[in-house]
Structures are given as C-alpha cells and as structure tokens.
C-alpha cells in the first residue's frame, strides 16, 4: 500500500471519527463487580489455564489488594473498577481469515484499514477486540523458520515452558497496583518468539479495539527475541466514540536475549473516553538492543513509561516518546532505564505538544547502578505549549552510583509564538494548517524512527487534530 493509499484510508478524520459512535455488536459473556478471587478463578477456568497461571493470577490479586493507589496519579477520580466489565468476550470465534469474523466486528478493522495494512506491510497480525483475540495470522514462511505468533492464551497452552520462563518475569505484578491488577485479570494479547539468528523482515502488529463503554481491557504482549534475532512490533489501539469511559490496563514484556534487536512501536489513538494505563518493560541481555517508539495521541488520560533494564554488557536502548494532549486531556508519559551492566548505552528523546487546555507530563528515570562501568545515558525533553491554557511538566530523575558512568538530561519548554503563526498565516495558511505545520516541524527529528506508512498516518492524525473542523478536542 502506498503512502497515499494509507493516508486515503484515514482521510481527514481521526480513528475515533472513523469508527463512529459505539454500536451494538454480539457479545458473549461479561464479568463485572468486585474484583476478588472468584472473578479471577472464573477467567482462568474459561481459558482452561494450567495451575501455575492461576496461582500467578491469585498472587497478583493479593498484591493488588495490598498495594495502595499511587498518590501521584491524578485525573482518574471517575474510575470505578467495580462498575466496569473486567472481562468481555465478543461473540466471535478466533479467526485466521478476516472473512470468518462476524461482519460487525470485521467492520471496525476494515474502517481502520488494518486488513490492507496486513496484506501489504506486515509479517503477522493479532487483533484483539474487547478481552479476546479475534484474529491471528502470520506469513507462512515465518512459521517454517520457527517464529511463533500466537494469541497469549494459546501460547500458554501450547508452549507452557517457554511462556512460564518469561511471563511476569520482566514486569512483576508487585511493581505497582495497576501492574498487579493487570496480571490478575489479563486476557487477550500476543506471544511472539523469534528463534536464534532469525530476522523477521517486516513488522508484526497487534491491534486493540475496545468496542463499548464501561469495559476493561487487560491484554498481555510477551516478546522473546532469542540470540542474534531481529524483529519489530507495532502496537495500535483505537475505540469508537464511547458514551461513558472505558479502562485499558495492558502490559508488554520484552526479553531481548544476547545480540538480539527488538523495536517496539506504539501508535496509541484511543478515543476520548478511554483511561489508558500501560505497563511496558524490556530486559536487554549482552549486546542486545531494545528500541521503544511511543506515540500517545488519543485517550482521556494516558500513563505510560516504556522501560528497559540493561542487564547484559554492551546492551543498548533508545526510547522515543511523543505525547499530544489536545483538548482538556492529559498525557503522563516518560521512560525509564536501569543500567545494570558495564558499557551500556541509553538515549531518551521526549517530545510533547499541549493544546486547547491539554496537560503533558514527562516522568523519567535513568539509574546507573554500581558496576555499570563506562555506561552512558542522555535524555532530551522538549515541550511545546500551543496556547495559554495548556501545561507541560517535567520530572526527570538521574540516579548515579557508578563513578565511571556519565548521564545528562536536558529539557526545554517553549510556546507557540504569535510571530510564528503570523508568518505562516501571512502566506495563506489557515490557523489550523499553520499549527499542524509547526507541530510537524517540532516532531520532524523523531519521525525518522517510524515506518514510512506510520509517518503518513501520524501526519494525517496531527493535521486532523489541529484543523478547524477535525479533531474531537
């Protein structure tokens, strides 16, 4: 699919507008009410899980009950975990062909152009609707190379030893309350294993849709890149216009083994009524590289901090974070890196745009442990405030325990000036066009980290966000 064709899929509408108002579709069962042992056991029973997974869920539930709400989390006062459905199954069998999906569910993905994207651009695709994976397919030649792409539940059944070795080992439920909640209730998601020395040429994608209000989505993505392998993974998410809020609490775990390279790209475009918590962490072993590209555009409020633990000598990570808070919405994003081995390298670049009363928060942590000799870290944060009512905050932590290491952080907050707008408007651009041009110029440096197709999509989304007729903010 050419850039023009993909742009044409979106036209001048946001994904939320493309999907339209939330509709009725056939649902199977839903679980709602107090989050307690019975609910967790019921999810595990439905998935016919082995005992070890049920025990893990119940341990996570204990942690959820034990850990208090984080005090720095603001803006989620309306979140009532007892009124949302923590598990919702669409009335659809998992399909290996789009034609086998019920029309009302297939339509969501078709409106977003996902089947075309898969055919032209992807090595494999997993589509999650509400709490279940409804579609999963991988190009056949990758199967012959030993690559595994499966819905997470199926991987638990078919590769229990491999999954058990890594599941919840990168991001333990004890880390914080929402990680514990996720592990207790997880459903849906993808498992990817790339064998030693295998290079997956095109990205694998997971696309998540929440179909209705007052739903919780807790999908789990686990990627294991074996020694010397290489792969990239794209995560996309959308929801229709919801009448009430819904809640997303997903998790991504990546284990990059010796000499492997993993690139993980997120294009988050939830609709304006989604409260979005994301738990993303990678462990990089010797000489492994992990790259995160996090684009947060939609949602009412987003909390996401892709993290990497550089555990092996010579491992590297780069994290690119883009947050667009357009309208009275909030993006609380950032990145964390722990240097736990010698000769490790990290780079974090964060760009945020606040417009129309939007609030962007960057929270970052770089920790260089004693013994991580000659490690180097650099962090750059830039915030652009488009109007008087918008805000940008930066909370970086640099923690050094190794004298031979070096770390630096730079942050700048600037505003859109009348001069910039006047210059562009005097050349015939409308205010929205001028604003989107300024924003795209601000983001130019990091666009190169995105696949060309997604640059086109992101460009279109930003044009819509700042146009006078588009954007829902």
């Amino acid at each position, binding site marked *: 699919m050419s850039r023009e064709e993909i742009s044409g899929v979106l036209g001048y509408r946001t994904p939320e507008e493309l999907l339209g108002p939330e509709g009725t579709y056939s649902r199977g069962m839903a679980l709602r009410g107090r989050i307690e042992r019975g609910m967790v056991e019921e999810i595990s029973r439905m998935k016919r899980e082995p005992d070890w997974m049920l025990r893990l869920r119940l341990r996570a539930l204990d942690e959820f009950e034990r850990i208090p709400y984080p005090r720095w989390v603001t803006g989620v006062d309306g979140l009532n975990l007892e009124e949302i459905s923590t598990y919702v199954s669409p009335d659809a069998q998992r399909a290996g062909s789009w034609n086998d999906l019920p029309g009302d569910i297939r339509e969501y993905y078709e409106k977003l152009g996902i089947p075309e994207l898969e055919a032209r651009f992807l090595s494999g695709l997993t589509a999650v609707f509400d709490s279940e994976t409804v579609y999963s397919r991988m190009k056949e030649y990758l199967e012959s190379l030993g690559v595994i792409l499966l819905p997470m539940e199926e991987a638990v059944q078919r590769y229990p030893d491999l999954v058990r070795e890594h599941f919840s080992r990168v991001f333990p439920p004890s880390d*914080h309350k929402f990680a514990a909640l996720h592990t207790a209730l997880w459903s849906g998601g993808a498992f990817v294993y790339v064998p030693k020395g295998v290079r997956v040429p095109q990205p694998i994608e997971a696309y998540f849709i929440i179909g209705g209000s007052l739903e919780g989505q807790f999908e789990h993505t686990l990627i294991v890149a074996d020694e010397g392998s290489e792969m990239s993974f794209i995560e996309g998410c959308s929801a229709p216009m919801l009448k009430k809020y819904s809640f997303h609490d997903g998790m991504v775990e990546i284990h990059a083994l010796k000499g492997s390279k993993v690139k993980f790209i997120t294009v988050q475009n939830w609709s304006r009524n989604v409260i979005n918590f994301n738990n993303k962490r990678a462990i990089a072993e010797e000489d492994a590289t992990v790259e995160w590209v996090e684009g947060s555009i939609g949602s009412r409020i987003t909390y996401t901090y892709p993290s990497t633990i550089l555990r092996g000598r010579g491992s590297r990570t780069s994290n690119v974070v883009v947050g667009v808070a357009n309208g009275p919405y909030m993006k609380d994003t950032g990145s964390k890196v722990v240097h736990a081995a010698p000769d490790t390298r990290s780079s974090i670049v964060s760009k945020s745009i606040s417009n129309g009363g939007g609030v962007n928060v960057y929270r970052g942590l770089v920790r260089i442990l004693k013994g991580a000799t000659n490690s180097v870290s650099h962090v750059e944060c830039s915030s652009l*405030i488009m109007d008087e009512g*918008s*805000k940008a905050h930066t909370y970086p*932590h640099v923690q050094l325990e190794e004298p031979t290491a*070096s770390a630096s952080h*730079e*942050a*700048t*907050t600037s505003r859109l000036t009348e001069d910039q707008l006047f210059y562009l408007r005097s050349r015939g651009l409308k205010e929205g066009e001028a604003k989107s041009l300024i924003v795209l110029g601000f983001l130019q440096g990091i666009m190169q980290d995105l696949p060309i197709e997604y640059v086109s999509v992101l460009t279109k989304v930003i044009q819509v966000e700042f146009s006078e007729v588009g954007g829902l903010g």
Partner: protein
Amino acid sequence: MMEVLEYQRVSDSPTVKHYTDWSAYEPFAGTLSRCPGDGFSYEASGDVRDGPRSIGALLPADESKLAAMHYAALGGFRSISIGGSASLALEPRGIECGSTVSRHSAILVEPGANVDLRITLGGGAGKLDLSFVELVLGEGSTANVLIYLGSTGGAPSAAGLRAALGRRARLNYVLLGSGGPMHHQDDRVLLGPSSALRAGAFLISPGGSRVDRFLGVDHAGEDSSSSASAMGIALGGGYSVMRGIARIEEGAARSRTEFTAGVALMGEGARGYAVPMLEVHTGDVLEARHHSFEAKPDADQLFYLRSRGLKEDEARDLIIAGWAEAQLSALEGALAGVASGLLGEVMRAVTSAAPTSRQ
C-alpha cells in the same frame, strides 16, 4: 501535630523512596524540649532594626513533621527589619539544654533597601540542628545571601531559606558547605512580579555523609525570572542529592526559568542524584529549561594542568574549585569575596579525601 504529620507527603521516585533518610531524625522526635533563645548571634552594620513580631508565614508548622519539630523545639526567634543599605551576619549560638538546637530568624528587607546577609549553620555539637530563615524582600529591594554549612558535630541537621520577593526585588543566593551524616536542605523562593532570582549551590558529601538539597522556585508574578544551579560532590561513600522544582504559575505570564543540577562522584561507593523538575502552568512562558548532568574532570583539562607541573590530585582539585567558583558567581559585591574565602574550608574536605599521590 507531629504525630499526624509526615516528613514528606509524596515519595520521591519509584526506585529511591526518599532521598532524605528520615529515620535519622526520628530518634529526636520523642525527646524535643524548648530551650531559651533563637540560636543565632547577630552582627550588623547599617540600618538594622527590630522587625514585626511574627513568623511562620513562609514556613507553616503543618508543612511537614520536620517543620513541626522545629517549632516544638524553638525557644525564641528574632525578627529584623532592614532599611537602606546594611550587612548582617548570623552565627550559630550554642544552646546548652536538650538534644535539639532549633534556630529561627525572620528578616524583612524594606522596599528599595539592599542587604548582604551571611548565615552560618552548624555547630550543633552532636545535637539535631534545625535552622530556618524567613526572608521577605520588599519592592525594588536587593539581597545577597550566603549560607555556609559548617560542621554539625556528627548529628543530623536540616535547614532552609524561605524567601518571598516583592515586585522588582532581586535575590542572589549561594549555598556552600559540606554535610554531616544527614543534612536536609529545603529552600523555597516565591517570586512576585518582575522579580529575579540567581542561585548557586556547591555542597560536598564526604564519606558516610548524605546531603539532600531541594530548591523550590515558584514564579507567581508576571515577568519574573530565575536562574538556579546546584553542584553536589559525593566523595567515596558519600551520598549527594541535588534536586528542585521550578514552577511557573498560571498568572506568571512572560516569565522565564533555568534550572541546572549536577553531581560528581569522586571515589568508590559515592552516589549522586540529580532531579531538576519543571512545571509550566501557562502557555505564556518566555522560556523554561532545565538540565542535569554528571560532572567529571575533563581529560583535556587534566592533561593541560599536569603538563604545567601539577600533580593529578592538584589538577583535579583545581578543576573542582572551578566548578565551585561558577556556583559562587550568583553573588555580587563583598559577599562574593567572603564566599571565595570560605571555599578553601569546603575544599579541604575534597583534598583530605584524595588518593595518595599528594604525599
């Protein structure tokens, strides 16, 4: 009040729960007693008078458990007004009773006045040392403030400058010294319209010591500006935290702020933490930037100095002294010279911790 208050209301970071080891203060909380006196002796020249008899506006007792402990142990305070041009030195005065020394001074600089204010802290002789100074700068006034942290006699300590700047007031502030087993420094500056802050800090954490320095800069008035930097040196086994927040409030249109925090680790077991935070609550901001870094003696500088005959330790000390001088440059006038003189005292902690090549 002490029983219900926390030392700190929000934990600092996901990996370091608190940069200050609050447990160091806890043994003293149950043994506080009020001893007479405000804990300072005063040496003044110029137009210095007694000021209004009230304190606490810039350090409320319910701000934290440490603030409550400070007032619970405070036996008296002195309030001073400064008009015209004046210089004032506050030296710690020994207090005989109790296990805690609590010191408090409130200083009002009247509109248009200028003051050089030198405050020496420490000398607690093994007692918990809690010292706070409230400083109000009237319209168009200027204050040069130097706070020197001396020896605490092996006991934990906490101190803070609380300053409020009126319209067009200017505060130049330098914090200089070295910490004891646990020193918590909590400075806050409130900026009114068109006021300006220049601040620098140079703090040494010798082996076994821990210094947590926090500077809060709150831009409340339009056209205000601040430029603050802090440099912490953690020697072998020392623990240095340089952190702070610059906040530009909604009404502080056309303000600018720059905040830099640096740490240098000199020896095994040294730890350094830099946390310069920024909150911008208005889009009408001229500029807001912050920067944190880890400092090391530059290899080229070392080579240059060694090629001129200096030993490696001497060259290193010279470079560190250069970092310190950069922090002291926030001060103007006579106090800048005083600060340079005190720097020798501070650098002794560095040179005494140096390896053997000096012998």
